[in-house]
């Protein structure tokens, strides 16, 4: 069961009971993560990225949410079947999480030290003194200057980027095997973004932690991840190694996403590309492909029949009636100008 895989999610379905009916926030997604690997989960808002990872932590608010079906195997343990007490021993110790907004994810009433110490006292059985020293060590590790005096500050005395560093320090306190970063850079400005990503990258290399990076920014995942899962309307639309996904996507949605990334070499006067329309209401999905209404090459079959999950090669899957055609098309006609440029220069880092 456990051959180097840290996490394997199989056919996960997480539904929410709302007044509008059942919202299938996550509907049958599967992916696997090897030890030490980084997985990117990409998708628009509301595509089920966050719910997937809250499901892994068993943090779905119940009710209205519920994991209806599926297996989440973390290091040989079926997370879905564990009692709550056992889950708590995993949370924070073996799987840690970084949240989107560092401004609200630290308790404003408690000192940084209290919050950092709580984790290690809870999971590693540290004494107060040990925990305090560990907290300072962690703050130093994430690059907070003057950690000895900053440790007893309150969250409001830190800037956004510094708070995100504190969150990372907190998440890595117990040396977790899996780090879930839920849009860790969305609320930060670009320069801080780069610093935080660099930090996560560096710590991953040093500690050998597996990382799941959730984001809607393709630029973020490009340089960070080994493979990418593209989600849309609660489903995996495409799954491929990062390089392959960027150079030869086999799904019209992925192509659209890649085309929407603004290119610095963009010609003045021409319009930026955007995928037309809005994501569908997941409570009332049409019978066919949920992307059909917005797709540039949709045909009648897309609106009537749900697309198959086509395997392009060993690691590359795509949910589309015309996956192979799109794949072949991408080979000839790369979606991004950057990829085009790389193609003419004979390969290179597709960014």
């Amino acid at each position: 069961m456990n051959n180097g895989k840290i996490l394997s999610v199989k056919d996960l379905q997480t539904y929410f009971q709302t007044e509008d009916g059942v919202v299938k926030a996550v509907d049958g997604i599967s992916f696997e993560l090897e030890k030490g690997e980084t997985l990117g989960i990409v998708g628009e808002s509301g595509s089920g990225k966050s719910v997937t990872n809250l499901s892994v932590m068993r943090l779905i608010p119940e009710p209205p949410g519920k994991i209806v079906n599926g297996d989440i195997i973390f290091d040989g343990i079926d997370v879905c079947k564990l009692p709550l007490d056992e889950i708590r021993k995993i949370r924070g110790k073996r799987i840690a999480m970084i949240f989107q907004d560092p401004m609200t994810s630290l308790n404003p009433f408690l000192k940084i030290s209290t919050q950092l110490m709580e984790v290690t006292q809870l999971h590693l059985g540290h004494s107060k003194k040990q925990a305090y020293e560990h907290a300072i060590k962690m703050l130093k590790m994430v690059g907070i200057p003057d950690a000895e005096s900053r440790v007893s500050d309150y969250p409001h005395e830190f800037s956004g980027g510094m708070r995100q560093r504190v969150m990372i320090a907190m998440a890595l306190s117990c040396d977790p095997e899996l780090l879930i970063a839920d849009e860790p850079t969305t609320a930060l400005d670009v320069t801080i973004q780069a610093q935080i990503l660099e930090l996560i990258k560096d710590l991953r290399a040093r500690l050998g932690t597996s990382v799941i990076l959730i984001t809607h920014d393709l630029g973020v995942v490009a340089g960070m991840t080994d493979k990418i899962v593209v989600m849309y309307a609660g489903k995996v639309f495409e799954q491929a190694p990062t390089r392959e996904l960027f150079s030869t996507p086999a799904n019209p949605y992925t192509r659209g996403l890649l085309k929407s990334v603004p290119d610095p070499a963009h010609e003045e006067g021409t319009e930026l590309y955007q995928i037309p329309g809005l994501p569908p209401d997941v409570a009332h999905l049409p019978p066919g492909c949920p992307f059909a209404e917005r797709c540039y090459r949709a045909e009648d079959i897309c609106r009537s029949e749900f697309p198959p999950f086509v395997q392009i090669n060993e690691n590359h899957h795509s949910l589309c009636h015309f996956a192979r055609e799109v794949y072949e098309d991408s080979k000839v006609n790369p979606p991004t100008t950057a990829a085009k440029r790389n193609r003419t220069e004979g390969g290179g880092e597709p960014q």
Partner: protein
Amino acid sequence: MLKDLSCPKCGAPVTLESERQRIVICSFCGATSSVDLRNEAEPELKLERTTPVAGTSLWADAWKRLLKNKLAVAGMVVLAVMVVLVIVGPMIVYQLTGLTAASQPSDGSLLKSFPPSLKHLMGTDELGRDLLARVLQGGRISLAVGFISTVVSLLVGVSYGAIAGYLGGKVDNVMMRIVDIIYAIPYILVVIVLLSVFGGPNTKVLIAALPPILIGLIVGVIGVLVAVSFYRRLFGEAKALSMVDSVKRFGFGLLESVIVIALVVIAGFVIAGTGLGETIAEKYGDVVSLGLNQILLLFFSLGLVSWLTMARVVRGQVLSLKNQDFIMAAKATGVSTFGIIFRHLVPNTLGPVIVYATLTVPSVMLAEAFLSYLGLGVQAPYASWGSLAADGVKNIAIFPWQLIFPGVTMAITLFSLNFLGDGLRDALDPQTRKF
């Protein structure tokens, strides 16, 4: 004369807004420097020695704001003086004059109410007792009622409201309906019923019944906890899968309940059999029935109602806090439900809680005065401000000081408490402050 100056620390150019400006803050490095005008033609900038700004916690910040509010500070001072007076006052009066709250003159003169004089600073009441001693003595009970009820409302109300708010759903619903029910019972009725059932000669019965009831309760709570952990160990938390399974579970639960109830009853009877309660009742019953029981029942009934609003206030706070990211983050680090409620949520509700607690004290004191005024609260020889005022009202036309002194003392205390409460609200929640 506004010539180009540069920051003495980093060298960046700084400009003076006007000729009279003496202090400049460099927009580049933030260093503060003063303008040195000894040489008029060539003004120089001198670096001010600055200390780094120490971080302030919310409490220090609030304290600073509170100190700026003159009324609140005055209230705080008056209150502190009042508390000290009430605690040491009766002893001082006894040392100076030899009078206590209960000492009556032994001469047989008919008129015993004397106006304020040097011997009796506040005059005497209709039985000739020194009013100053009685007001100070009464202050002890009045303030104690206020503070004890507030402590009850803090302990019970805050945890009750936080638990209901955080757990939510059915638990919240049941807990808050209980609050609604207690709310609906008029507390005057509760006091009257309690006094007529347990007051007077029945007090001994009540005291004798207390130990078995208390022990029974403790056994019951422990029993339920043990039973739940046994149930969990046997069946886990997963849902029952088959009919047989659910019947088995129901049977086991029923068996456990019967065992726990039996244990409670047995424990109660065993303690009752030892006669512990009766011994205590024999020993202290007489003292208590002297009138102290009235005070205890007053504490009890006011404590019973005082935590209700606090529970609602805290529940409302928790409801809005529990969906915030930092609670999710705490959950994601594996903090237990207990830890989340009491380490993460309760401190965040403290602002409104403190404000509400300061405003609870005067309202409870007023309720006590009201009950005593009706003759339901504190009984002679004990006194409270309420009962003193009630005595004074009878003679208001001829001996006005008997109403004025207790009344004014109480009014001053209530004023101070209300000013302090308002000041705390402004200090802890600066957004609601009117400018």
